[in-house]
């Protein structure tokens, strides 16, 4: 319990740091980018959007940095992330709400899939170290992990979507279906998600596989593994419940830490597939210098990643009795 409490405090500190960075970045940049943006947008967008922007970044009031900060925090607590420029007059919270669920499902499912497949492959590779399985798979996956997610997405989209026409080219569901909890809609959503998810899984699998393989090699040298083999237990049982079970802990810490990286890659993947998640919205934000939207997305992703990290810590406590007994 104490361990979880400590972690919770840490994540709250991290969250506060993310929020404060978000507040400070526009105010500490040289040459006042917000002022430049307001000047550039004059006459191009709705004057009310500019007014909202001025208000959000404290350009109107001669208030002190501190009172701006307090104001900013209180707005955040009320779920007010400002007004979007690209999607004016929608608020940033509304725009993000549209994309968040798609990203959460896509990234969540593919990260977990990739973790399990990668860990399993790593276990087998370490068990059969030196075999063709190990010696071909490890370098192959290293190569795959060196491919930028979005480029793999481009290639996959070109071959399987454009040339072979097996999968749709854009979107998250067929547009002639009414979104809702109906069979055809869910099937269509899954059909549209296969390519983006496969891209993320293939690109992110290698890290977990190599991590698991290295940890397994250390546990395989332990006496209890030898003992289990001497007892004549089945190969699968020794591999999974004796060796893998003890090697998986560092990989779970790794899962939490690399999640931020996977999310970054997934955002770019979404852009390639025109998948209507946060990545796609992020591109719109970047293209129209929509700073409030960019910052809102950063904050949302930070919260999601911190939350997932905390869940991984809970798993850690469940899996590792030493942490539970620590007083």
């Amino acid at each position: 319990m104490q361990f979880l409490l400590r972690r919770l405090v840490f994540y709250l500190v991290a969250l506060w740091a993310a929020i404060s960075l978000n507040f400070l970045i526009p105010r500490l940049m040289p040459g006042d980018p917000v002022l430049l943006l307001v000047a550039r947008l004059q006459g191009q967008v709705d004057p009310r959007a500019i007014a909202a922007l001025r208000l959000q970044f404290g350009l109107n009031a001669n208030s002190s940095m501190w009172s701006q900060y307090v104001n900013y925090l209180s707005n955040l607590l009320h779920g007010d992330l400002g007004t979007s420029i690209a999607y004016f007059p929608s608020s940033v919270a509304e725009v993000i709400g549209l994309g968040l669920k798609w990203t959460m499902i896509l990234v969540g499912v593919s990260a977990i899939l990739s973790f399990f497949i990668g860990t399993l492959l790593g276990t087998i590779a370490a068990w059969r170290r030196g075999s063709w399985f190990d010696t071909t798979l490890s370098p192959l996956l290293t190569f795959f992990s060196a491919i930028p997610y979005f480029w793999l997405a481009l290639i996959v989209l070109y071959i399987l979507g454009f040339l072979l026409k097996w999968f749709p080219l854009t979107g998250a569901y067929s547009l002639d279906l009414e979104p809702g909890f109906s069979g055809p809609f869910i099937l269509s959503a899954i059909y549209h998600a296969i390519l983006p998810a496969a891209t993320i899984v293939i690109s992110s699998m290698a890290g977990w596989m190599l991590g698991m393989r290295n940890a397994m090699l250390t546990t395989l040298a332990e006496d209890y593994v030898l003992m289990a083999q001497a007892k004549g237990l089945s190969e699968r049982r020794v591999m999974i419940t004796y060796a893998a079970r003890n090697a998986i802990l560092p990989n779970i810490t790794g899962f939490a830490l690399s999640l931020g990286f996977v999310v970054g890659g997934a955002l770019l993947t979404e852009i390639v597939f025109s998948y209507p998640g946060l990545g796609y919205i992020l591109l719109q934000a970047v293209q129209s210098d929509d700073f409030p939207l960019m910052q809102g997305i950063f904050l949302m992703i930070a919260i999601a990643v911190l939350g997932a990290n905390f869940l991984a810590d809970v798993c850690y406590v469940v899996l590792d009795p030493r942490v539970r007994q620590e007083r």
Partner: protein
Amino acid sequence: MAIKQRDAQASFQGQQGVGALRADEGIRAELLRRLAKRRANLSLFRSVKIRIGLGILGFFVLLAIFGPVFVHQDPQAFSSDVLSPPSAAHWMGTTQTGQDVFAQVIDGTRMTLLVGFAVGALATFLSVVIGLTAGYFGGVVDELISLVINVFLVIPALPLTIVLAGYIPVRGPLPVAVVISLTGWAWGARVLRAQTMSLRKREFVEAARASGESTFRIIFAEILTNELAIVASSLIFTIIYAIFSEVGLEFLGLSDVTVTSWGNMLFWATNNQALLLGAWWWIVPPGLCIALLGAGLAFTNNGIDELTNPRLRDASRG
């Protein structure tokens, strides 16, 4: 008591030494030869992975330095050959405005590597300073710095980098490099801090402290030189991270899009719907180069890991 024991040990070793002198010189030579062989086994270039990795890396470095000398074509020059597939005249085809893809890939190597290496150097410098300071001093200093390191590790880097790069009034390779360095130092700092903590109680550090060396010298001359393998590994890891982030930011159009680099090539290609026009030759070369370069760096990194962790090394040998 302690002195007596040491004396006894010394005299014992002395006898051994005399014995060894008397023994056949052939054994001595054999021992030396074995020792040399073991050293050679441990040296960098014995590892196949490191050789492949450094080979790939060296190829791209040479390409970056000398490539533009041999390819005289201006990578940004327009021509009337629009979107033509690879041919003898254009080895990798042309873009929608008739630019030569081959010339762009060669020229782009320079900028991509430059940013990658610059970030690697800058971020590794930050992680060395921060990690060693935390690890050496311990206590409150360590607690505070560790907190900052861990916070930077859990905050998703790419979205933060995008926000930072978006706000910078000037767009270009230099701001991109600075921004990536600011978000990419934490991993190395964490690894170096852990290693420094285990080194700071070692005898050679105590000896340096006793002989009155300055703290600065102890940290950066005594301790740092003893963890150079980890610094190298973290440098390579950071360069991989840097190239990935750089390409990602350029793909989003957050760098100077008129500069020729692999990421910018992909930006223009996707913005011009290259795939839907069937122009795979515009997309494949830059991405393949990134993947090859990244794989080369990753192989080097794995190779160094195997050198420092004998268990992994023996496993890979089968």
